[in-house]
């Protein structure tokens, strides 16, 4: 059994719960992290993962009970690790028993949020604890008082204490030997304890007062030191307190603890304010003396003591220790604790802080909030810091604020980040090269998301040149990241080859596996963009090694995503689904939005070939609320689900999702999402009959002919060569010859690279084009292609495409629809459609209702076997030329 207890004080070191519970708790602070290390987000997850593995290893071959007592008082990072553990608990003989109070006054917002998450876990079971029964109350009281209790006295005791074992014990201690039937409960338990304390010797009372300010559990030597006594002089007092049930021994040598939290509360409540502040000052000084060489785990405790002293007007120490504790918490990956401590320093210092000190504190606060994903808090703190820095004309502080946050794709946010970078860069004297490089890199990233690619290009180039000149590793990595982002469009593959190779080199040179892994993933992105599936397969071994060395769930997730996408591209659907789900589960414990996005991307591509009912995507769409935390992915967040819905026949839902993205002509995806956005958009637009959007997106696709539908930054799925989609859009628009030529190229490409399912898809689309065109040997070619596609679809398990290929293979010889097929009114309507009129305009011209005009258009489409208005236009034009 392992027992850990959260402390009511806010002075416990970060991860206090787990420092008690883990076999090697240093995993939670052993990561020496540079303030601007880009991999910190994953670093904490890696440490959580390692902590979980430690616990699981301790439960190997035996059952382990982990008791987490008073968990409602735990610090936020400890609670996040508890949530991580709960999500990972599978088939391990580890029972985690967490106790918490349900009264709102005793809980924090953080605990309530984590509790809600814990309850959702299928393995979580809640057990409500109630007081002792009447019989047990009597048994407990008799055991404590060592005397029998009458029935009436027992009933009175139960009624008065509600069966609370602590209260029962406390009252039982006071039972007079002769009063078995006369139970008197004092007005409050606090009063009862106070009375008990007052009976102790003066030295013991002083010692208890000192202990009460130190905490529920405390070091004997420190308590003695607080009252300026040698321990040996206090030994009898400790015994006296133990004999009266106020203190008890602990498993840690040299420490004691209060018999109950309420005892400590009662002792502390009796201290006059001035005496309490004095005791806290002496406690802080005693801790500083006693642990001078090992203060790191006690910094938050020192901050707590000095914060109480601050009520006397002595604020400097409180601010200093809170800041030191805040930095230590961030260094230990306890970002929420860091934010709390920096905020505490600001609150204590207010309103006497100097401008520079306040500005630096706000930047520290923003940094901790950014790392803990508190974007709103971070934004507020940054803006306040920059306002002060501007007022006192300190561009260096503006630069520090800019380097604290990253651009996120939010217009106002990104504009701020870039403006702050520009302000800092324009400072005189000019900042040193490495610092300028980092500022330029940040400005370049902001420019990418602002759609200002020329600015991004220039800033990232200069950043890299400066970083190289400075030879500062952090600056070089930042500049490479910015340059990679600025070049993340598919037209920059050659340069990205170099950038990726340099990133790998940096990782190897600095022995930072996460940096190396980042570079290797960039290499794989480039291979995807070249459609080099064999190349990706060949690099998987090295990627796997690197991911293992880097450790942590993110590394495993990247590897699994790559393997899943490769299997999907090759038409190995079962393997792709399994790998994708494992990848998703790997990050499930983390609750990272990337996990859902990547899986949805894979599932959408898979569902396109095997049917969306087989991937779980529809369920996931129903269960997962739209993610608004990652605004950079907003466009694909709308049109991706729209494609799943459209291909599942839910056109109304698809249209609603699609329209949230606005008209296609207004889309401005980041460069790395460009081709997937055009591809997915064109598929949805065609399914919904959005002719204009299909035309717009086809034009955009044509500019990327010869490329592949993948993202240039962390690809998670493959959507085939661009010609497959431009050709399909051409067919939709009735441009049969363009469609034939582009789809033929697509089919050839798919076969050459081993994208078997996409070859089937290209053949089907081409067969449909030939059927529609109906010229020369089109019909026979179409049937041959369709038969071939059906065989391929059957072999690969592409159910929707198998049906389509079979239908095409069995289609009767197409005949060119003739004008006689249509009524005179329909011919008239067709002419108006070809002239570009809307249904409303047609209705107005022919004195019809809009509904009737719409019916006519529908009849024309049905009779001519066409899919949309563009094809009506083509048909009218062709008929006019024939005539």
């Amino acid at each position, binding site marked *: 059994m392992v027992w850990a207890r959260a402390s009511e004080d806010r002075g416990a070191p970060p991860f206090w719960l787990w420092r008690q519970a883990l076999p090697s708790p240093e995993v939670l602070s052993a990561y020496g992290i540079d303030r601007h290390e880009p991999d910190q987000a994953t670093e904490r997850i890696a440490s959580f993962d390692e902590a979980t593995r430690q616990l699981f290893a301790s439960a190997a071959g035996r059952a382990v009970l982990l008791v987490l007592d008073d968990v409602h008082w735990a610090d936020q990072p400890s609670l996040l690790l508890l949530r991580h553990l709960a999500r990972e608990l599978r088939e391990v003989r580890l029972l985690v028993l967490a106790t918490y109070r349900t009264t709102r006054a005793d809980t924090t917002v953080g605990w309530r949020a984590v509790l809600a998450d814990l309850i959702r876990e299928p393995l979580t079971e809640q057990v409500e604890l109630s007081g002792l029964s009447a019989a047990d109350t009597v048994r407990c009281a008799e055991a404590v008082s060592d005397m029998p209790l009458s029935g009436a006295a027992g009933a009175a005791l139960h009624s008065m204490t509600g069966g609370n074992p602590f209260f029962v014990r406390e009252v039982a201690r006071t039972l007079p030997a002769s009063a078995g039937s006369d139970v008197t409960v004092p007005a409050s338990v606090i009063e009862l304890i106070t009375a008990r304390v007052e009976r102790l010797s003066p030295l013991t009372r002083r010692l208890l007062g000192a202990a009460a300010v130190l905490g529920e559990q405390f070091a004997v030597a420190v308590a003695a030191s607080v009252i300026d006594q*040698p321990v040996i002089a206090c030994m*009898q007092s400790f015994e006296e307190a133990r004999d009266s049930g106020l203190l008890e021994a602990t498993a840690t040598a*040299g420490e004691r603890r209060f018999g109950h939290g309420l005892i400590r509360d009662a002792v502390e409540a009796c201290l006059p304010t001035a005496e309490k502040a004095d005791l806290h000052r002496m406690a802080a000084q005693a801790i500083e003396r006693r642990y001078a060489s090992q203060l790191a785990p006690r910094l938050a405790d020192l901050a707590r003591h000095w914060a109480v002293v601050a009520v006397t007007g002595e604020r400097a120490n409180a601010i200093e220790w809170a800041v030191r504790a805040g930095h230590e918490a961030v260094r230990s990956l306890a970002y929420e604790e860091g934010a709390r401590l920096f905020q505490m320093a600001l609150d204590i210092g207010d309103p006497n802080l100097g401008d520079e000190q306040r500005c630096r504190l706000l930047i520290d606060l923003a940094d901790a909030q950014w790392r803990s994903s508190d974007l709103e808090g971070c934004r507020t703190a940054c803006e306040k810091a920059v306002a002060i820095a501007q007022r006192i004309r300190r561009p260096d502080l503006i630069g520090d604020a800019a380097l604290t946050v990253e651009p996120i794709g939010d217009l106002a946010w990104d504009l701020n980040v870039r403006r702050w970078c520009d302000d800092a860069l324009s400072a005189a004297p000019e900042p040193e090269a490495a610092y300028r490089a980092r500022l330029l890199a940040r400005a370049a990233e902001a420019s990418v998301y602002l759609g200002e690619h020329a600015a991004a290009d220039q800033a990232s180039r200069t950043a890299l040149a400066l970083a190289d000149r400075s030879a500062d590793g952090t600056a070089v990595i930042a500049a490479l990241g910015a340059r990679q982002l600025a070049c993340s469009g598919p037209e920059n593959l050659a340069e990205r080859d170099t950038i990726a190779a340099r990133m790998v080199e940096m990782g190897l040179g600095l022995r930072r596996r996460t940096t190396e892994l980042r570079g290797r993933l960039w290499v794989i992105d480039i291979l995807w963009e070249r459609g080099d599936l064999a190349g990706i397969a060949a690099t998987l071994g090295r990627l796997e090694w690197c991911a293992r060395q880097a450790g942590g769930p993110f590394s495993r997730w990247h590897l699994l995503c790559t393997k899943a996408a490769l299997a999907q591209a090759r038409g190995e659907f079962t393997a792709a689904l399994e790998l994708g789900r494992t990848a998703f589960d790997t990050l499930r414990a983390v609750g990272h939005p990337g996990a859902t996005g990547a899986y949805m991307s894979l599932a959408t591509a898979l569902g396109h070939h095997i049917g969306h009912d087989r991937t779980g995507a529809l369920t996931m769409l129903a269960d997962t609320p739209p993610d608004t935390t990652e605004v950079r992915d907003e466009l694909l967040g709308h049109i991706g689900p729209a494609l799943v819905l459209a291909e599942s026949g839910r056109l109304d839902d698809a249209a609603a999702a699609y329209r949230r993205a606005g008209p296609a002509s207004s889309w401005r995806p980041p460069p790395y999402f460009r081709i997937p956005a055009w591809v997915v958009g064109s598929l949805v637009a065609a399914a919904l009959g959005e002719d204009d959007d299909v035309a717009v997106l086809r034009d955009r696709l044509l500019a990327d002919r010869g490329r592949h539908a993948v993202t240039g930054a962390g690809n998670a799925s493959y959507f085939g060569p661009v010609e497959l989609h431009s050709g399909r859009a051409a067919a939709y628009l009735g441009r049969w010859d363009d469609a034939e030529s582009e789809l033929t190229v697509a089919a050839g490409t798919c076969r050459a690279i081993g994208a078997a399912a996409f070859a089937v898809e290209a053949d089907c689309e081409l067969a449909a084009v030939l059927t529609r065109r109906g010229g020369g040997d089109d019909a026979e070619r179409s049937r041959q292609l369709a038969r071939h596609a059906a065989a391929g679809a059957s072999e690969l398990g592409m159910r929707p495409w198998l049906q389509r290929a079979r239908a095409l293979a069995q289609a009767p010889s197409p005949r060119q629809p003739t004008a006689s097929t249509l009524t005179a009114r329909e011919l008239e309507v067709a002419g108006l459609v070809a002239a570009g009129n809307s249904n409303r305009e047609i209705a107005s011209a022919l004195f019809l209702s809009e509904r009737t005009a719409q019916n006519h258009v529908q009849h024309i489409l049905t009779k001519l076997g066409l899919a949309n208005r563009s094809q009506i236009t083509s048909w009218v034009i062709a008929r006019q030329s024939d005539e």
Partner: protein
Amino acid sequence: MPYTHISHVPGHSLGDYQAVADVLGPEPPAGRLALIVGEADGALHIVDVWDSKAHADLFAAERLMPAFQQAGLKPGPAESYLEFDTSVLELGARTA
């Protein structure tokens, strides 16, 4: 600077001292420079010289208190005690 602590404990005897010393074992505690123990006038008198006060406190907190408990003894009320920084410390070669 060395730290000296002198205790006079009425009601405790050399036998009590020995019972606690047996629990503590022969290994001298870290930082102890000298120990003088004697019994007179129905009290135990102990002179302890340490490298520092921190050494003395650590010993008392981590070893002496549990040793009392293990020996079944309760620390007596320290009738009087005296502590001071030690300006001169000379030790002979012989121990009793």
